[in-house]
């Protein structure tokens, strides 16, 4: 039986969520100066509910800060890539469905990967089954496997997950075409 009732991670996420909801309330009410008492009650209720409903997960601020510019840049590339294909005659696409063996464990990190993958240039998450992500690729001439492994590394850095297997095992590819 531990004497400590509140552990450090819980305290950290309490402070974090309190700040987050206060900011959110400020944004929604243009500063929240009209009804500070009402606002405080809302912020406290929201924080309590969020702590009750979702357990704190370990995450890294540095990982997140490094992810943001990467994500913005990839969104820009993804949008440009698909826009020029839409305008050109043809249109010049060569789709293929690939299977990628995920290293991220099931959970938030994996859900995050599935969502972000849709915004990266030329990839679309079609299905997850048995630790494999089926990716619809708009242009099969692209090296998708490397991009997916790099994305996985970045997401692992945010959620402080150690990926078990190496990014590229010799003689064995993480990615292969759907039969």
């Amino acid at each position, binding site marked *: 039986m531990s004497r400590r009732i509140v552990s450090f991670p819980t305290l950290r996420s309490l402070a974090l969520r309190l700040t987050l909801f206060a*900011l*959110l309330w*400020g*944004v*929604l009410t*243009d*500063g929240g100066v009209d009804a500070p008492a009402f606002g405080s009650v809302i912020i406290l209720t929201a924080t309590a509910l969020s702590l009750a409903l979702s357990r704190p997960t370990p995450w890294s601020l540095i990982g997140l800060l490094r992810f943001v510019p990467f994500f*913005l840049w990839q*969104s*820009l590339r*993804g*949008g*440009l*890539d*698909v*826009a020029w*294909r*839409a*305008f050109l005659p043809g*249109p010049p*696409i*060569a*789709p*293929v*469905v690939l299977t990628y063996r995920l290293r991220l464990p099931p959970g938030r990190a994996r859900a995050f990967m*599935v*969502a*972000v993958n*849709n*915004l990266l*240039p*030329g990839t*679309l*998450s*079609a*299905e997850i089954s048995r630790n494999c992500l*089926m990716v*619809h690729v*708009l242009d099969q001439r692209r090296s998708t496997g490397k991009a997916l492994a790099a994305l996985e590394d970045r997401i692992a850095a945010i959620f402080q997950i150690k990926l078990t297997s190496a990014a590229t095992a010799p003689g064995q590819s993480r990615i292969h075409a759907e039969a």
Partner: protein
Amino acid sequence: MADLISAFLLLGGVAFFLAGTLGLLRFPDVYSRLHALTKADNLGLGLLVAGLAIRSESWFAVGKLVLIWLLVLVASSFACHLVARAAWRRGIPPWT
């Protein structure tokens, strides 16, 4: 100057919306149309939000614009996956 940058970003944003719709009409199957729509519209809305944020009167207004973009981003990205998965489970074959 800020007005010029803002106008440029807004025009760019609308251009990407048009590109997304063009892809929606021209691409051969539901999967590639998802590519076009999700990526182009999210970039389009992102540029639009950036263009409006530059001219914004307060930081709270900027926050609200960014919040709207993030919400749409999360919604359309998961929606994109769910539609693709539904199509895949239904056995709709990808165009090759």
